[in-house]
């Protein structure tokens, strides 16, 4: 168990903590997933002066991932020309735990990738998946989240953006 201290020091919920990884591992996991879902939250409108939305769109396109647009992100994503499903985060998380759910594209998702969601909120939500589903979770936010199967270390905006670029490029390969 070798990991950085989570961004929120009390975010650890128990024995089982996810891994802190670099962009390559994240990109690989997304790429190799059977049917990943991209969950895009309100932060995409503000973070990195809005460029986060562009990265999210790039990833979705590159990997051809169905996108759940949480909060009020739908039009921002529509504006960037991709098809997304508007759906609250709790709705997504609840559905991902339902073995009957056929995903956004007609079959179950095995990996949930999230971006643009506040770390405390997402860490809690991902804990639900950690404990009550087989879905693996990936956070590409700039904060380290112990309840995500994989998340980045705590990064500055600059390095985070480099990581995002790296992930996009890997997926676009």
């Amino acid at each position, binding site marked *: 168990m070798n990991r950085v201290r989570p961004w929120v020091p009390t975010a650890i919920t128990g024995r089982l903590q996810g891994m802190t990884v670099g962009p390559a591992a994240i990109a690989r996991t997304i790429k190799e997933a059977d049917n990943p879902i991209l969950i895009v939250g309100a932060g995409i409108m503000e973070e990195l002066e809005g460029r986060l939305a562009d990265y999210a769109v790039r990833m979705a396109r590159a990997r051809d991932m169905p996108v759940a647009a*949480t909060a009020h992100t739908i039009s921002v994503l529509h504006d960037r020309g991709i098809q997304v*499903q*508007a759906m609250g985060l709790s709705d997504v998380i*609840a559905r991902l735990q339902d073995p009957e759910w056929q995903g956004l594209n007609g079959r179950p998702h095995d990996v949930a990738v999230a971006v643009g969601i506040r770390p*405390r909120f997402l860490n809690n*939500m991902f*804990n639900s998946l950690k*404990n009550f589903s087989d879905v693996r979770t990936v956070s590409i936010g700039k904060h380290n989240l112990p309840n995500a199967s994989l998340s980045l270390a705590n990064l500055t905006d600059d390095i985070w953006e480099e990581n995002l670029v790296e992930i996009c490029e890997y997926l676009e390969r």
Partner: protein
Amino acid sequence: MSEHQKVKIEKMKTDVIDLSNVIIEIGDIEKEWDEKVGPHPKPSMSTLREWDFKLLSRHKPLYTPVCDECCMCAFGKCDLTQDRKGACGIDLTTQQARQVAMYAAIGTACHAAHARHMLHHQIELCGRDYPIDLGDNVEVEAPIMRTVVGSKPETLGDMEKALDYAEEEITKVLASIHTGQEGNHLEYESKALHVGMIDNLVKEIGDIAQVVGYGMPKGVPDAPLAELGFGSLDRSKPLILLIGHNVAGGASMVDYLKKHNLEDKVELAGICCTSHDLTRIYDRGKIMGPLSRTMKFLQAGIADVIVVDEQCIRTDVREWAEKTGAPLIASSEHNVQGLRDRTEDDPGEVIADLVEGRETGAFILDSDKVAEVAVQTAMAVKPRREKLRFLPTPKEAQKLAKRCTTCEACHRVCPVDIHISEGMDAAKEGDLSVLAGYRELCVGCTRCEEACGREIPIIKMIETAARDEIIKDNYRIRVGRGPIQDVEIRKVGSPIVFGEIPGIVVFAGCSNYPNSTVEMAEMAEEFLKRNFIVVVSGCAAMEIARHKDEDGKTLYEKYPGDFDAGGLVNLGSCLSNAHVLGAAIKVANIFAKRDLRGNFEEIADYIYNRVGAVAVVWGTYSQKALAIGTGVNRWGIPVILGPQGTQYRRQFIGRKDKPETWAGFNARNGEAMNLEPVPEHLVYTPETKEEAMVWIVKLCLRNNDTPKGRMYKLEHYIDIHQKYMGTFPDDIDKYIRNKADIPLTKKDQIMKILEEKGWQPREVPDPTIVERLTRKPKAKEAGK
């Protein structure tokens, strides 16, 4: 419960009789009430379990554990990750539900103990026979008690039995938390719902007791406006700051000031619900703000005397009182703070001890003594104290900022995610404006200061930075009006049920979420403009008052206090938020003529399927807020929590994509059928206020909406969706039963969507989820 009494009368003499040593046995004597008793008077912990299970099969618990371990017994800690069970056999799902039930029980216990104290106090002041008179316009005085307990109180004393019942149920639910019982999460959820319903009940009792006893406004729509904010204080006068929820001490102070003609000489102001209740009895009482402002006032040292009662008070209040030289009076058994008990001592002695600094505080359980000591002490210490001197000067703030190493420890722990070091960076250069900007976001939790290795007094610096604004802080809030009048219900019953009033939105509970002032005020105004009834109470009501428009007006100055379309109804403290549920019940009773007595299930079914109400607890934090929310959930009213609501560990999420989960009946013929997926969720935590607003309108949808009602609601739904999401909603077909439901203004667009989706018109049933309540009950049901 003992309705039954055996009594020995040793001596009794009246005009007609004179007897001694008679034993009288009294059975279950009930007050006269000709309403027939329904199936569930005084429901026990599992009585309404089937009802709960119906709700829970529609709105399934979604758990977000805050901890994967359990530490509740000496067997622990147990690791419950994934499918591991603890040493008692419990799994993580059940453990989450158990914790929810436990915390809901704690919240309910607070209100129950508060109600018990208040009722006891009023009985002492006014007598057990003091009539419950809520004015000419309120006949159905205690709708929750009527429904749950099955009794109709006429006097203060009549409410005592209901509290006995409540305490028994709280004890039962708490007992069920003990290790080695339920192994099924739904059982604990049912217990949480049960204790939540008890929470509704005890709040109603507590508020009725104080409304009646203190003569608070009795449901008057045009309750006066009170002043709120630091700027409303006359700083030349001694200030007594009341913190907490139980206004008994504050009420005695009002009496004392009046009796001694000191109203002009002393400022009485409160934080949290005690201040709501203060303004309900005293037109010069001031509201300083909600819980989230407490630490700022404490650190700034604005008070000359601090009086604490119970609940939601900084637990380190004594430390800060001492640091700022303000004598502290603890007036409740719940929060004694290690102070010496002076209840039996001569007030003069206590005052001398406090004024001369021999002691820094006192525990006094007698509200009259509290009043005397507080007022006299405040007047004596005031001349020695200078307000705000505990804040650094802007110069000092700049110097302090220079200590900051930008380590981000503060930012990491900040529950509302404030990027403090950015403010520090600016402050290093002498620019305090960034820090000043944090003022509205910061909830004063001190966590940043605890984490900071450089001992930077972050909150004080923010206050210093925002000093000019703080001094100007002065807002108007409508005083808590208490219950909703029967006449109002008569007036709105039909528009609510038939749809001209698209919904009732309740903003209640705490305000510990960043920007809750602006966000809650914005949300409230959105729905006021849309002719919803907007009801507020507790810290939320205060937070909403802290927002002014360009003309300097708060929403309370712009919207009337009527329980009617476009009305902004401040009920008062958290206790009084029971009345909004009361209003929903009264709709069923007064408008729809449903019997209340012991008839919970029918009434809840009515509300769930017919009364489009939704509660928003945006800045939620407390166990009470959890109890309040869980309580209204049991009556079928959905609750929207702010994002930090995930810390409560559980939401109730419906699945509109699974029609089979919406099973119900057409009451007209008893036919089983899948109803509409509305209201979709019972507890939901949106990410942003924009998302919240979409949910507010959507969660007002009800199965029984009339075509007109549905049409109005959908019009708002589409409109809000377009406004905040920027798109047309993609699920509109789910809510259009037939063409009459289609909003006229959007008819073409909708028709196109419906065609694409292959929509077919559907039958509109008389909806119920309780088979017993259908008109052609199945043979089996009938046999019961």
